[in-house]
C-alpha cells in the first residue's frame, strides 16, 4: 500500500509525459501499415501531368490507328476503349471471381499459392536511419534507435499517415 502511494506521489516524469501523448491503437496502426503497403505498390506518386491538357482535334489521338495494319474492314476495327469496357474488371474482382471458380472445381487458385507467414521473428529497423531499431515509439509503434532519431521521428513522421 505504502509503495503505491509513493509512486503516485512522485512517479517518473517520463511516464507522466507519455500518458499525455496521443496513442494510436492497434486497428489504426494496421490501417496505417496498409496505407504504406499501398504506396509501395502504386505506379505513381504525382498526379498526371497531362491531366489538364486539352488535346487539339488535329493531333492524331493515341487510340487512332495511323497505319492500316490488317485487311479488316474499318467497321470491324476496334479501339482500345472497346477492350477496356468489355473487360473492365479490377484486380480484386478478378481474384474474387477466380476464388469462387476454384472453390467449385477444387483446383488451386491465386490466393492459395501466397507464401505463408515466416516462423522466424521479424527484425526491426530504425525508421529514420535504417539501422537496427530497438525502441518503439509510444504513439505510433514505429521503431527508432537513438534519442536523435527519436526526435527526428517525432518532428516528422510520427503522426503522419494516420487515417
Amino acid at each position, binding site marked *: 500500500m505504502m509503495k503505491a502511494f509513493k509512486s503516485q506521489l512522485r512517479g517518473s516524469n517520463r511516464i507522466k509525459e507519455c500518458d499525455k501523448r496521443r496513442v494510436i491503437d492497434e486497428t489504426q496502426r494496421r490501417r496505417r501499415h496498409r496505407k504504406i503497403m499501398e504506396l*509501395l505498390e502504386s*505506379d505513381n506518386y504525382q498526379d498526371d501531368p497531362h491531366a489538364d491538357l486539352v488535346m487539339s482535334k488535329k493531333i492524331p489521338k493515341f487510340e487512332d490507328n495511323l497505319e492500316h*495494319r490488317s485487311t479488316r474492314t474499318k467497321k470491324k476495327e476496334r479501339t*482500345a476503349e472497346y477492350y477496356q469496357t468489355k473487360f473492365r474488371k479490377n484486380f480484386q474482382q478478378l481474384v474474387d471471381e477466380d476464388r469462387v471458380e476454384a472453390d467449385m472445381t477444387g483446383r488451386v487458385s491465386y490466393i492459395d*499459392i501466397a507464401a505463408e507467414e515466416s516462423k522466424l521473428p521479424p527484425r526491426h529497423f530504425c525508421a529514420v536511419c535504417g539501422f537496427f531499431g530497438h525502441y518503439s515509439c509510444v504513439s505510433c509503434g514505429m521503431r527508432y534507435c537513438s534519442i536523435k532519431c527519436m526526435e527526428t521521428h517525432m518532428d516528422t513522421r510520427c503522426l503522419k499517415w494516420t487515417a
Partner: protein
Amino acid sequence: MSYMDSSQSGDESEDNQCEIKRFRHEPKSYNLNRRYERQRPRRSRLASRDAGSYNLKVVESNLQGLIFDNGAHTIKINYSFEEKPKIIPNCIMKAKSERKRLFIGSQIDECRDCSGLFYLIPSERGYITKWDVQKPIWDFVFSKSVCPVNNYPLIMTQPLFNFKSIQDCIDEIFFEEYEVSSMLRINPTDLAVMKYHQEIGAKPPCVIVDSGYSFTHVIPYLEGKKYLKGVRRINVGGKLLTNHLKDIISYRQYHVMEETFVINQVKEDTCYVSQDFKSDLKAAELPSSKNHIIRNYVLPDFNNIRRGYIQDADKKDEIAENCQILRLNNERFTVPEILFHPSDIGIKSIGISEAVVKSIFSCPQYYQKDLAKNIVCIGGSTKFVGFRDRLYNEIRSMIPASWEVNVYQPDDPISYTWMGGKVILKSPDIKAKLPPSKKNLMIGLKWKSMKIHNLNAKLSKLVISNMLKNTTYLGRDLCLKNPTKRLIIKQKILKWQIQENVKKKLMFQAKMMQKRCQV
C-alpha cells in the same frame, strides 16, 4: 508414367540430334536417380524402332515463330531466328518537359528529359487489367517498325493462374485484331524449364525462382510439369523495391517520390545483396573515412549527364561538382534484403530462400534431392550482385548436409524465358501445341472458339499421329484417364473427320467437273 509415354519422342530427338551440353552437372551425379538410369536403355530401344517406322515424328521441328514475353515491366520480343530479344518497356510514359506527347514503350529513348515521368502501367500485381493502356503498347510492339506478326506462329507468356477473362481478352485481341495464325499462351517459367533442360542436356526435376517486377514465384517442376502444391508466391518484386528506395531516400535526403525512372536506375546501379547482413550493417555505421559501403551517386540532370553513375572515391570529377549527389549507405543492401526478409517492412510472408526450401519439402520425397540440386533463378530482381550466393548459402543451411545444393543463375536472367521460347519451337511436339499451320487462320479461329486449349493440344497431336498411321484408334497415346474427356475428344475427332470427308468429296467433285469441262 503418362509424361514418359507422351514425351518419348521428344527425349529421343534431343538425345540424338541436339548437341548435348553439360555444365555444372556431371553425368555421374545422376546415379542417384534410379528412374533415369532405368529409363535410358529402354528409351534407346524404342528409338531404333521409332526411327524406323515413324521417321516424321522424331525430326526436330524447324518451325520459326515470334516469341513474345509479356512481362509487367518489360516486353521481350523477337523472331526465333534472331539472336537476342528486343527489350521494350511495357508502359506508356508522360514527361513533364514534352507535353502533348506520350512515349509508348521504347519511344522513351527519344525523350530528352526523363525527370518526373508519369507511368501508365497496364498490369496490376502482374495481371493485365488496364486494356486501354496495354492495347496501344501492343499496337506499337506489333507495328511494322518493331515486330510485325507476319503470319508467324506466336508464343506468348502469361503469369501463373492467369485469370479467365484476361485470357479471353488476349485471345480476342490477338486472333481478331492482329490476326495471328496460331498462338500458344504459356507460363514464362515453363519456357525457362525447357531452356534449362536443353542447356544441361537432361530432364531433372527443378525449382524455378522467378523474381520479377510484380512478384516472386517459386515453382517446382517434376517430370516437366508444375507441381502446384509446391508453388509459393511472395508479393515482393522490383516495383516494390524501387518504391521503397524512393520512400527512404525521400525521407532521408532529397524528395524523389516522382522520380521512379531515376531511382530505378539507382537501384540497379548501386544495390546489392549482402552476404552477411549484420556485419554489413555494422560496417555501414562507421564514419565515412573507414566505411567501405558508402557510395556517392551522381544524379542525372538530363543536360550534361543523361544517366547517373557512381562517383569514384578518389577523384571527384568536375562535372559532378555542379550536380546533385546522392549518398547511399545502408540503403544499398537493406532494400534487396526485403526479398529475403519481407518481414523487415512488415509484409507477413516468408523470404525467398525459406520459400524455396518449403517448396522443396512440400514435393513428394522421391524428388526432393533432385530439386535441391536444380534451382534456377530468373527474372530481373535476381540480377542484384550477390543474389545467387546468398540464396545458395541460405538454402544450404536449411537443407540436409548430405544433399547436393545447386543454384544456377543464367548470364541473362531477364531474357532467359525468351530463349526458352526458341527451345519450345524446336521441340518435336510444338506443332501439336500450335494449330497446324496450313489452314491456320480458319482452324486457329475455330480452335479459339472451342476454348479448351489443353484439350486441343492433345487432340491435334492425336489427329496428326492418326494421319501418320492411317488408323483410327483412340485414347491410348493420349493417356487420358478421364473417360468423359476421352469421349469428348472422340466426338470432336469424329466431327473433324466428317468435315474433312465432306471437304474431300467436294474437292473431288470439283475436280471431276473441271475434267469434264476440259473434255
